[in-house]
């Protein structure tokens, strides 16, 4: 604990982890029916590739990834597809639990491309909460040099013990999964960051590490403080590196994975088992058998809680995720997804509704706990006033929405709610602005095309007239004085703007290959149309001048 660095702010909420970390990690009963939502990750929803009536085994692909930030989805029980909806697929189980596995891979010998393909076809996403597709994250090495893989085992939110139990039971496998990722991204160094309130998991890791002499894996135990499990905060703590604003850990050469994801990666590579189940913490005072379970994806939350001894009259609300950043479920008839790390069945006493909000007195408590060193009190003020310029000056978009400020606010102001609303409002405005700009460019392109067509028509007409003049030999009355100099300038300007548009397009395409270039290509096409029109006009004017001088 000696050589860890510090991040600003942070809070010490009651941990309440005791309730779920006392019992062993067990399998939840096989569900009779599962509902698998097509959107189990960040980005685009997957596209179904089964029809009602199809027989599936555990691990059969039922929806394919489409688009870049997306992930495959697999059947989590064997049985019959009963319904394929626009947002979800329902499977009725046969109770057999028949599996369909991919061939086992030896990660130490396998080609990186084979490993990447395995991650892709196994539907693995980050199981810590954000749900970013793992195969995309693994390809980060194409753009960045990675020196350290961080295993984020901090698990700083109250109540949640899923990573804790995963490490206690599967420390060796998590470390092996970490080595697969380290190999893929070329990291020389693996670092485990874990809060000191998980002594059993630390012991298990130490024991596992004793088997891994030659490999550079370092265990760092950090003091318990929320939100040290935030990616940026943990990297600061372990490596004293600041992830740049708007950037990724990869920008400072770091990749973060949580233990559950690493275990899933090992299962996919070693056992050919796609992501069909995950560890879920069941806790809260409204259930009698709290603990952590391996749960098949798509299992109903209600079923799960009832198996854990749900005391319905006492139940006030069920929160998915932790109490700081999670969200209350509107209905219990909702399935477990790849992102469900914790379900808190809370009584009214346990998590009562907040007291009424009173005015901000700018006491500065929020500022002293902000892990990003923002001024939450000022952001609150400007968010309510919708003063977007000020919000950006005060770095609204650096807020990680950890909720520490709301937690300490003596006036009970739901600060993070304000920030989220402001952020989504500003994002929407930006999208609108880009759309308007794009529409303008489309219009300009059309104008340029019409101008070019007009110029072509003029050129043809002039050519015809010239021919007539020659044949009739009568002196042409075309006394129109041509502004040759002006046209020459216009032509040069059009040429320059084509060059500029080409350059911009090339630069942007190089900087960010992922970005959509439609708009820039449109602008280039516009410039090219303008150039063509200018060329025609110039040629036409020269012709006219020469024909006037020659007779």
């Amino acid at each position: 604990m000696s050589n860890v660095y510090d991040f600003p702010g942070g809070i010490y909420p009651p941990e309440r982890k005791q309730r779920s970390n006392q019992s062993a990690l067990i399998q939840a009963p096989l569900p009779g029916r599962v509902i698998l939502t097509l959107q189990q990750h960040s980005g685009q929803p997957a596209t179904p590739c089964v029809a009602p009536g199809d027989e599936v085994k555990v691990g059969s692909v039922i929806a394919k990834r489409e688009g870049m930030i997306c992930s495959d989805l697999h059947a989590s029980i064997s049985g019959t597809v009963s319904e394929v909806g626009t947002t979800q697929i329902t499977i009725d189980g046969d109770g057999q639990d028949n599996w369909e596995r991919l061939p086992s891979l030896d990660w130490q010998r396998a080609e990186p491309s084979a490993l990447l393909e395995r991650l892709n076809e196994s539907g693995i996403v980050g199981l810590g909460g954000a749900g970013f597709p793992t195969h995309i994250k693994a390809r980060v090495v194409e753009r960045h040099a990675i020196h350290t893989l961080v295993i984020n085992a901090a698990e700083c939110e109250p109540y949640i013990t899923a990573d804790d139990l995963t490490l206690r039971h599967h420390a060796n496998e998590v470390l092996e999964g970490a080595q697969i990722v380290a190999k893929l991204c070329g990291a020389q160094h693996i670092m485990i960051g874990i809060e000191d309130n998980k002594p059993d998991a630390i012991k298990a890791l130490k024991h596992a590490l004793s088997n891994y002499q030659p490999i550079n894996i370092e265990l760092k135990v950090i003091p318990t403080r929320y939100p040290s499990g935030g990616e940026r905060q943990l990297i600061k703590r372990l490596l004293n590196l600041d992830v740049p604003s708007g950037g990724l850990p990869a920008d400072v050469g770091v990749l973060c994975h949580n233990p559950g994801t690493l275990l899933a990666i090992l299962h996919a590579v070693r056992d050919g088992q796609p992501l069909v189940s995950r560890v879920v913490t069941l806790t809260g005072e409204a259930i009698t058998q709290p603990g952590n379970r391996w749960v098949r994806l798509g299992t109903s939350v209600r079923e799960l809680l009832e198996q854990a001894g749900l005391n319905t009259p006492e139940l006030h609300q069920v929160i998915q995720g932790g109490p700081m950043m999670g969200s209350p479920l509107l209905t219990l008839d909702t399935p477990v997804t790849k992102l469900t790390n914790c379900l808190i069945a809370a009584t009214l006493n346990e998590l009562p509704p907040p007291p009424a909000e009173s005015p901000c007195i700018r006491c500065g408590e929020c500022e002293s706990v902000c892990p990003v060193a923002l001024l939450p009190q000022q952001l609150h003020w400007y968010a309510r006033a919708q003063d977007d310029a000020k919000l950006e000056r005060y770095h609204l978009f650096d807020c990680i929405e950890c909720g520490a400020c709301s937690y300490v606010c003596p006036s009970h102001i739901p600060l993070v709610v304000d920030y989220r609303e402001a952020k989504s409002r500003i994002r929407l405005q930006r999208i609108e602005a880009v759309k308007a700009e794009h529409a303008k460019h489309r219009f300009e392109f059309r104008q340029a095309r019409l101008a070019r067509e007009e110029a072509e028509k003029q050129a043809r007409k002039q050519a015809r007239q010239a021919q007539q003049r020659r044949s009739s030999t009568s002196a042409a009355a075309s006394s129109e004085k041509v502004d040759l100099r002006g046209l020459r300038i216009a032509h040069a300007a059009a040429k320059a703007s084509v060059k500029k548009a080409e350059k911009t397009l090339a630069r942007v395409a190089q900087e960010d290959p992922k970005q959509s270039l439609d708009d820039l290509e449109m602008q280039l096409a516009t410039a090219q149309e303008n150039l063509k029109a200018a060329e025609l006009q110039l040629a036409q004017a020269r012709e006219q001048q020469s024909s006037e001088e020659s007779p």
Partner: protein
Amino acid sequence: MSMMHASGVKDAITATSVPPTASLMRWVIAATLPGIATMSYFFGLGIISNVLLAAAFGVALEAAVLRLRQRPIRVKLNDSSALLTGVLLGASLPPASPWWLIGVGMIAAIVVAKQLYGGLGHNPFNPAMVGYALLLVSFPTYMTLWAPPQELLPNDLWAQIAGTLPTAQLDSLSGATPLDAFKHKGEAVLASEFWAASPLPDGTLSAWRWVALAWLAGGAVLLAKRIISWHIPVAMLGSVLLLATLFYLSDPSHFASPLFHLLTGATLFGAFFIATDPVSAATSQRGKLLYGAGIGALVMIIRTFGGYPDAVAFAVLLMNLCVPLLDLYSVPRPTGQQKASPGKPGEQP
């Protein structure tokens, strides 16, 4: 990535672990008690009657304005902020203040400085100091009625509160505060000569020192309970000490000692109870340091070169004026940002 945030969820734990605004206010009120007790020990029960009257005015005026503004009276009064303003203004007034003086001060404080700007959290100026400054410039005779210690008899008290004390007796009551006496000692008089002439009634100086130490004790409680942060008091007292030391070292025969500036007048009271009003103070920690230092510097400048012997009220109000500017230029650098503020607003962060 971001699930909907549930305000009920995170505030749930909050309810039991952080004192709400009202209790912050009550802690500040509690911390004024040693100062008020010490003052009334030395300067008579007039101090207590001031505080009680001002607090009562505060609550009544706040309720009246809330009623006019059609706001929930009971909920808002419950935050105790009007009570606190009353206590602070009451504790600043001379012991022989009549009821109407207190009333006028509290109208300026609660109605004008606070509620007309939108109530708690919206006032740009410290309400108690607005009241005090108004009284100081409007009723200078009453505001300098600092009786020598223990001079005011209990049977005079009622007459004093009612404002019916005869003028002759009023005059006999008025004694200079140490700061006042030193300020008006005359250009030619050396500091040593001034002190040799024993210009103050017996015990006056030590009474003021005890009062200052009592405020310090209350302030220490607030710091220990983390009701206020150290930034403003430390910056303010630091800059008072620094400037007083510089003046004193430059000419000890004409300038008072740093300790004199620290332990007389409202320096300590102001540092812990007035300047630390979060609503009207600067926001960021860096801003608070600048704000506190500015108050300290203005106190020394006004005391030394200005027309008023004590200067805490004016210094605080002047620095209140600077808060928007301080806030704008003291934004901390967030983790991961190259600098505190991006060049252009509207830039993609």
